[in-house]
């Protein structure tokens, strides 16, 4: 695998992640569709790549006092336990099966985001018509 394709894939994932949308949600299909990686490998890469990126963002955000530590504890404990269990489960599932389940997950996320976006533009338009008095 040529290194520049790997960097370009990372660039796209990072770009979307940096904008506050699901970076990993995009990086995994990029690696699977365009680079032909196995689904398990793409998922493992995404998890590992997230770590250095997250550490840098956390340092910057902490300096800007944007992190709410109160909300941290109760979410993290159950999440870590559940994630380990389901990571084991994913690793014991056949590659094509995992890929199909992931694809359905992606479509659900897409529809969810689409609904939110439509709701927001509807709200925006209403605000606009209120302002100009229609």
């Amino acid at each position, binding site marked *: *695998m040529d290194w520049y394709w*790997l960097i*370009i894939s*990372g*660039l796209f994932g*990072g*770009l979307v992640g*940096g*904008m*506050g*949308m*699901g970076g*990993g*949600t*995009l*990086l995994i*299909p990029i690696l699977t569709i365009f680079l032909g990686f196995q689904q*398990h*490998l793409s*998922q493992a*890469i*995404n*998890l*590992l*790549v997230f*770590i250095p990126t*997250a550490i*840098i963002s*956390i340092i910057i*955000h902490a300096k*800007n006092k*944007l*992190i*709410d530590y109160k*909300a*941290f504890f109760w*979410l*993290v404990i*159950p*999440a*870590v*336990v*559940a*994630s*380990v*269990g*389901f*990571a084991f*489960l994913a*690793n014991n599932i056949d590659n094509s099966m995992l*890929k*199909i389940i*992931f*694809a*359905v997950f992606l*479509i659900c996320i*897409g*529809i969810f*985001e689409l609904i939110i976006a439509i709701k*927001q533009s509807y709200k925006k338009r209403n605000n606009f018509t209120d302002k100009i008095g229609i």
Partner: protein
Amino acid sequence: MARFLRGILSKKANNIFMSKQSLEKLKKTSIMLVAGVFIGIINGFFGGGGGMICVPVLLMMGLTNQKAHATAILIMLPISIASALVYYSHGIVDWNIVIWVALGSLIGGAVGAFILKKISNLTLQYIFAFVVIAAGIRMLF
């Protein structure tokens, strides 16, 4: 006596044992516990995407948009490390690939955070939604 018992059972009586504030706190804590399990399931099983659930949950908890995004990253870090260890233990990690993708991701992340202020958020959301749906359909076939 019967009146007293009925009083305990009724909703209003909860306030005898628990103030409204602590009841609210208990409610918040239980929502976070359930949401935490859900975030863990998604992130462990799909190797990502937990942040997309974490941000709305934090917004629901009353955090501002900026704080929710920042805090979500801190929450996702230990979860991702834990899941990554499981994937790593199954021997599917190739460090040569990880290093190059991580390099790209770091640059992309910095650029993304920088240009975020210059593009309409809503347009981006539409693009993201369509790209993700297209990718999902492509992966099904």
